[in-house]
């Protein structure tokens, strides 16, 4: 199970990479592994303004569907359209294939996110 030290995490298994006022958001190795083969990703519209906790995307595996939530508030400035034709990229390289890029509403919300050690503990508890 892969965990990257330099990323931030949410308790819902999203990873967040902050660059200036932008944040890249995807799902973790733990999440893609639990889902199994991902066969469909429903992406949001660019320009959508969402709060922390709102649903960004829906990911469907062969046997189930799972929602991806905004870990912090922001405006969607880019969606990863590669995932429309190749949803399995998330299984193959979960940290290299972000789902959305957002412009953060309030960068202080990053303080609410988990560091890698706290996230690892959550994963251990769930197993």
């Amino acid at each position, binding site marked *: 199970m892969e965990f990257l030290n330099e990323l931030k995490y949410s308790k819902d298994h999203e990873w967040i990479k902050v660059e200036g006022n932008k944040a890249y958001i995807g799902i973790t190795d733990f999440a893609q592994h639990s889902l*199994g083969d991902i066969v469909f990703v429903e992406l949001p519209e660019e320009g959508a303004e969402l709060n922390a906790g709102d649903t960004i995307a829906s990911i469907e595996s062969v046997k189930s569907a799972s929602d991806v939530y905004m870990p912090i508030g922001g405006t969607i400035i880019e969606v990863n359209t590669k995932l429309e034709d190749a949803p399995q990229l998330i299984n193959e390289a979960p940290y290299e294939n972000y789902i959305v890029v957002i412009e953060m509403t309030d960068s202080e919300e990053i303080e609410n996110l988990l560091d890698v050690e706290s996230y690892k503990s959550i994963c251990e508890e769930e197993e």
Partner: protein
Amino acid sequence: MKRTPLYELHKEFGGRMVDFAGWEMPIQYTSIIKEHQAVRTNAGIFDVSHMGEALVEGSEAQNFINRIITNDITRIRDGQIIYSPMCNEKGGVVDDVIIYKYNDQKFLIVLNASNTKKDVEWLLMNTFDGVGVTDISSEYSQLAIQGPKAQEILQRHTEYDLSSLKFFRFIDDFMLGGIKCLISRTGYTGEDGFEVYTSPKDAANLWNKIMSKDASEQDVPMPAGLGARDTLRMEAALPLYGHELNDDITPLEAGISNFVKLSKPDFIGRDKLITISKSGLKRELTGFVMEDRGIPRAGYKVYSLDGEQIGVVTSGGYSPSTSQNIGMAIVKKGWNTDSEYCIQIRGKLLKASVVKLPFYRKSYKK
């Protein structure tokens, strides 16, 4: 939950266990898609020990069988197998089964795991003089080895020329890898393959035998779980009880009318099926492929292009062999001969094209 004798092997091979009909079974080991593709291109091995088995014996056994099934048992000979729905008085399906004919006085019926108890009760309720029914599910474990390489792989473990065991035929007291079993050329995947029944105490040994490699052998089957079993059968448009079939759906509506022989002497459900057949079907099973992006699932509603609800999806999902999102739906007959309708997926009406079944062509050995 109940466990088959292969439980430890499932864990050893990385099986992700789920509750299926009260049994703890592997939904996948590595990836549903990889396991599916292994069956289509090479071979997969499934633990299907959760299936039920009933023995029907007696001087009236054949008459009994012909009374409870819609297909005609008199069409098959000793050593052959028949597939049939079993109907209730309303013509709805109690279960779909396969029946192995030993001789006119001895038959083995294989029952869906989810219906075993119900089926045995149904059989017992309908017996008459000259026929005895026994639930022998606990005496059998079962492995299914499916795929184009299945025969080649199993051939290593027997002197018998497996190419002479034809489709829908079986041999009992067969020795496979030195283990006694019942072997049939049957399956639920749309590929060539075999189902092997053995005593529970021999099941794990049999799995290990089939999975054993020596230096020269390249191929052994890939362990495949219930997830792949479902995607495979869906592509082959094989019905799944609880989806395409249930107590309220007749085999005529479910697309399996070729297994219903209305000209047979009386059988349970015959009168109702004849009435329905004469007055015309009100609904029918159709196959579809999504045109708009979205994954159809069982229970989702089907709408005509005009927005009228016309039916419901019975099975749906991603098809690894065709790389499309496919499904089957029971819809109102005569609604419109459009070749398109819509599936309601998460509040949106998404377009689908109606296609002929199956989605994937079977390649059975003859």
